[in-house]
């Protein structure tokens, strides 16, 4: 039988960092190392399975006019390809559009799955204390991994298009020779700062939203009155709608900036 303290500790907590940080779901040991599977890794697997099952089913219909969820997926993909990628990449859109679509839908699914309070639902249904679901993009390692993938994608595509020597020479614009070392150094530093900012932007937006929601829920525990609970839940509803907008915008920004960096690497204009 769970005490009242523990009952409240799943639905609302004092520490706002508790519901957003990673928690171990399963631990097994390989030799002398402990391998911890955290709930963020579990959410990444859930997102992967969701996308691998839903998207092929959605776009499977062979009629000329798409219906239902296939229409949604197809219109989003058309927007990303025609309005976002084609003005930047021009004639090489089709080579990189698979990567861009994958990044967009993956980040979007992770953000939206983070808004679903799955551990609270499981607790209310079964009564078991657990930490199964969480905002997966609120983990700097997961967004860092996606930014590293975008980093390697830009440079490998640039090297494959222009050859290694021409790619390294064309990193900087043509400036007079006495200022070239500083400009080249700045370009190299920019190359390494870009994936860092990609990761930090997505991570900080999502985790700021979730910390704010956790603080507002925790206010109910601090005040312990119905009036504060009413105001708090109303503002949580409004903030969750804002968080849904932020989820879409951040997924679009991630895909757009990846496209922009790839276009810098494969364009032969410098």
């Amino acid at each position: 039988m769970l005490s009242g303290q523990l009952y409240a500790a799943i639905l609302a907590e004092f520490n706002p960092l508790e519901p957003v940080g990673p928690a171990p779901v399963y631990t097994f040991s390989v030799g002398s190392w402990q391998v911890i599977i955290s709930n963020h890794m579990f959410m990444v697997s859930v997102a992967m399975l969701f996308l691998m099952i839903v998207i092929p089913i959605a776009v499977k219909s062979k009629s000329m006019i798409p219906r239902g969820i296939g229409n949604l997926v197809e219109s989003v993909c058309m927007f990303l390809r025609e309005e976002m990628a084609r003005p930047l990449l021009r004639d090489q859109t089709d080579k990189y559009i698979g990567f861009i679509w994958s990044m967009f839908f993956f980040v979007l699914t992770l953000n939206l799955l983070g808004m679903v309070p799955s551990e609270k639902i499981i607790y209310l249904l079964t009564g078991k204390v657990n930490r199964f679901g969480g905002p997966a993009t609120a983990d700097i390692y997961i967004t860092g991994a996606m930014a590293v993938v975008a980093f390697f994608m830009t440079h490998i595509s640039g090297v494959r298009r222009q050859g290694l020597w021409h790619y390294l020479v064309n990193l900087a614009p043509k400036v007079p020779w006495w200022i070239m070392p500083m400009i080249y150094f700045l370009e190299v530093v920019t190359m390494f700062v870009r994936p860092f900012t990609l990761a930090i932007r997505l991570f900080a937006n999502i985790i700021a939203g979730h910390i704010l929601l956790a603080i507002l829920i925790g206010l109910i525990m601090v005040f312990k009155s119905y009036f504060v609970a009413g105001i708090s839940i109303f503002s949580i509803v409004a903030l969750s709608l804002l968080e849904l907008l932020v989820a879409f915008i951040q997924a679009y920004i991630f895909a757009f900036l990846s496209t922009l960096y790839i276009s810098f690497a494969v364009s032969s204009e410098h």
Partner: protein
Amino acid sequence: MIGMTGVMLAEAGAVVTNWAIAAAAIGCGLIIIGAGFGIGWIGSKAVDAIARQPEAEGRIFTTMLIAAALIEGVTFFALAICFLVLFWLRG
């Protein structure tokens, strides 16, 4: 995992006093002033541009969102430094 930075800095001898917490909170306010000015400026220019040429509303709105998200990225990077002091530098 989220406290690793804090543990590393605490073992290096960082001490969080009351002045540090006050400075972090004031820093958060200053950051938000800067971000508010920047994104408000972008929004105002975007509305002016849409008023000049209403048929370009889609492109202008998208560009405004991209610029606002870039500013927010820098804002949250600075806010993360404030969070470092407020939440994670505990021994």
